[in-house]
């Protein structure tokens, strides 16, 4: 069996930016002293004059991005999710959200798969924070293929976009000829009738693995890759609820306010069914290898399988 290609979505981000930079001279990339980690250094090598290192000053970086966008450039402001959505929340809210300026925020190192850096750097709150900003689009791509499509789509749309990437290398799962990316449209990876697993980011792969294990037990799980968390594909969420009657959400994010929260809000209003949210259960993360952390918090394939099996009963 050939080995599955693995690449971290932050690295895909760097590559996608370089590609975008070749096509569009209004693309400018900002970083806050993390270019080697966010992988914007790939863009920097290709276009040093359009890569602006703002130093360790994320609040200022968001404001500079707003100023660049207000004068017609398309800035991609990049740092760790903790320092983008977390530290610079109010700058994003007031200087980018309220103004609806054309700023793209590239937030890497999201979730607990950050690993050994520990809880201070594992941002499990960013989706919740960004979701409350009117007009903010939030995309959490699941693999290399999707990052490239998402970065391109973010550039092509007018208005602020929060792009969420991970540190850990993840398998390429969307490498197929019929793959199509559209902001706000979830992708059904597997049809099913017993339960629907809705996942985002690297958890999409866990969901796919879990569905395979569940199938062996005779449980037929639908799997949805919900790459866009805002605007949420409510139509698809409702369809999944109607067809399966049970929903599980999976994300490396707090179960409060993220994908799970968004799905629950949609279902409560439109099609109430039992929901199980898998994610960080109102706790901080900790240091450790990323694989071990995903296992401990039930976010790997096996963990998702176990929780879904119990939930389906």
């Amino acid at each position, binding site marked *: 069996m050939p080995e599955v290609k693995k690449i971290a979505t932050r690295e895909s981000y760097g590559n996608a930016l370089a590609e975008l930079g070749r096509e569009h001279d209004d693309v400018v990339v900002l970083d806050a002293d993390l270019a080697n980690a966010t992988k914007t250094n790939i863009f920097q090598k290709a276009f040093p004059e359009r890569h602006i290192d703002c130093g360790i*000053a994320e609040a200022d970086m968001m*404001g500079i991005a707003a*100023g660049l966008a207000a*004068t017609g*450039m398309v800035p991609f402001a990049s740092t760790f999710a903790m320092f983008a959505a977390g530290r610079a929340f109010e700058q994003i809210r007031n*200087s980018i959200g309220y103004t609806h300026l054309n700023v793209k925020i590239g937030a890497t190192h999201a979730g607990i798969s950050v690993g050994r850096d520990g809880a201070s750097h594992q941002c499990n709150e960013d989706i919740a924070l960004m979701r409350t900003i009117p007009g903010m689009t939030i995309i959490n791509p699941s693999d290399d293929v999707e990052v490239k499509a998402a970065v391109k789509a973010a550039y092509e749309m007018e208005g602020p976009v929060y792009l969420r990437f991970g540190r850990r290398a993840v398998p390429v799962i969307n490498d197929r000829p019929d793959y199509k990316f559209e902001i706000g449209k979830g992708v059904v990876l597997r049809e099913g009738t017993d339960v629907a697993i809705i996942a985002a980011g690297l958890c999409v792969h866990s969901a796919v693995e879990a569905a395979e294990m569940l199938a062996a037990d005779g449980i037929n799980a639908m799997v949805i890759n919900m790459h866009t968390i805002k605007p949420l594909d409510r139509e698809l969420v409702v369809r999944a609820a109607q067809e399966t009657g049970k929903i599980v959400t999976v994300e490396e994010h707090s179960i409060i306010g993220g994908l799970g929260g968004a799905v629950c809000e949609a279902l409560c209003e439109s099609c109430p069914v039992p929901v199980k949210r898998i994610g960080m259960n109102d706790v901080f993360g900790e240091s450790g290898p990323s694989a071990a952390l995903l296992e401990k918090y039930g976010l790997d394939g096996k963990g998702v399988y176990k929780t879904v099996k119990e939930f389906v009963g």
Partner: protein
Amino acid sequence: MNKLLLQKMANEVRKGIINGTHAAESGHPGGSLSAAEVLTYLYFEEMNIDPADPGNPDRDRFVLSKGHAAPGLYSVLANRGYFPVEDLVTLRHLGSYLQGHPCMTSTPGIDMSSGSLGQGISAAVGMALSAKLRNKDYRVYTLLGDGELQEGQVWEASMFAGARKLDNLVVIVDNNGLQIDGKIEDVNSPYPIDKKFDAFNFHVINVSDGNDLDQLDAAFKEARETKGMPTAIIIKTVKGKGVSFMEGQAGWHGKAPNDEQYAMAMEELERVEEALCRK
């Protein structure tokens, strides 16, 4: 520079500030009045702008980082022809395009939304950087309060502007000496302001009377000639300037005149106008 014309205009701007805040029953007259001359100078003398073409990509930009002085900015924009002066009394009213703090998506002529202190200067820096990246020769001006200097983001932005040698950027500090809780040196002193900007690699100009148009004229000319570094113009002003009972009073930072105070203020401004017209 036609000083008399600008003096008359600054007085008109003051009337707009009093009209707006009185009608709004709220708002910030003190820090708007202290900046009346500098705002007038920028929009009627210094900046390359055209009210008929507010979206021109090559225009000079202004960011009111001390966004609470919106009544002052609105009054200048209205008098400059961006929108009717009569609309100033809709300030802060439900449905008005004149929001409590500047909003670029609702008001013609506003280059950047602001109001949360410390953020405007970063956007101004981004605009100045944008010009450098694309070899455009527009200039960017931003007005900060002296209390605003307590925000850390001001210094993040200043460090970047100095390091990047953004000589198309002018940072103006309205040093009226008062903030909501009292004197700036009693609350959390930002002094010495000039030495701070100097240390952040700015060309620094101290203006001893920032309500004097001749001094402002000299300062902005010097800024224009400064190459290789951004300029900080620190203007010593009087909070509430032009309305005697508001002058030097922290209490008038964010309080509107009532009907009686409104009448007193307008009478005083009318007298100034008559005196200027006799000149």
